[in-house]
């Protein structure tokens, strides 16, 4: 079941844990918020380089920290990053 559906069901039922989770999610987002951030398209521009660094065993978080920060705060780019990494690992296996 999609996460968003769960969210909405929980929301309408008013489950305390749901609001609690939302509050935590918001705080985590604020904690990760920086004055300057890459937009999704800027992060995606560098995503292939980022993933190749990972595949090469390098630490992309020190080489491309802005991309790493974007991936932590943006669930859509994170999902795409994880998918890209996964399918490229097919070639290694």
């Amino acid at each position, binding site marked *: 079941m999609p996460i968003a559906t769960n969210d909405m069901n929980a929301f309408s039922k008013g489950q*305390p844990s749901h609001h609690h989770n939302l509050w935590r999610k918001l705080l985590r987002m604020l904690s990760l918020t920086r004055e300057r951030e890459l937009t999704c398209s800027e992060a995606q521009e560098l995503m292939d380089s980022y993933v190749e660094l990972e595949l090469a065993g390098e630490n992309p978080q020190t080489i491309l920290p802005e991309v790493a920060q974007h991936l932590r705060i943006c669930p859509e780019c994170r999902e795409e990053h994880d998918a890209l990494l996964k399918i490229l690992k097919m070639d290694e296996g």
Partner: protein
Amino acid sequence: MSTPRDNDAWIADLRAPGPRKDAAIIDLLAWLQKRLFFYLRDRSDLRSRHDEELQALSADFAQESVIIILEKLDQFQGRSKFTTWAAKIAVHQALGELRRARWRDISLQAATRDGAFEPDFLRREDVMSPEGGAIQQEAMSVVMDVMQNELSQRQSRALYARLVLGEPSSILAAELGVSHNALYKLIHDARKRLKARLLERGLSPEEILSSFQ
């Protein structure tokens, strides 16, 4: 793949006229489809789908992606392998489609939903108990106050739609009539404002988070 190609060979073949280009397109389609299928089959939300259905879906995604890849060929700068770049475009295309399809299903299920900002969406009393405490109370009040009185209606709506509803940003951007970049900036500005107001009161998000433990 029939002939392994380096980056230059991919670009040259995809730019060549006639059968050389056709052969490269067929190889690229096959390369992408195989990997998209592998990925789709592993997704928990698609577990119930048959392999044939996922094969067809990955074929569609590969087709759509190759059209985009050919359109963007001039933008390839050779910073990564060509196939990594192509896979990035395909993943963006495929996951964007999946997110939009999932959202359409959700919207049908919740026909009454109107995406309007619910000022009460954090529901203080629920969040407060049982581990509430003064810091949580104060931080929550600051956030609610900024959301209701300082952020624009669009900012509040965008933040709510992304954080609470999980609406795909491409759909939300279209609804708001802004570009994807403008939507990111809208939400980024809202986050910065919320964070600044908390910090002004000596409340760091990290500290508030740690007060949960």
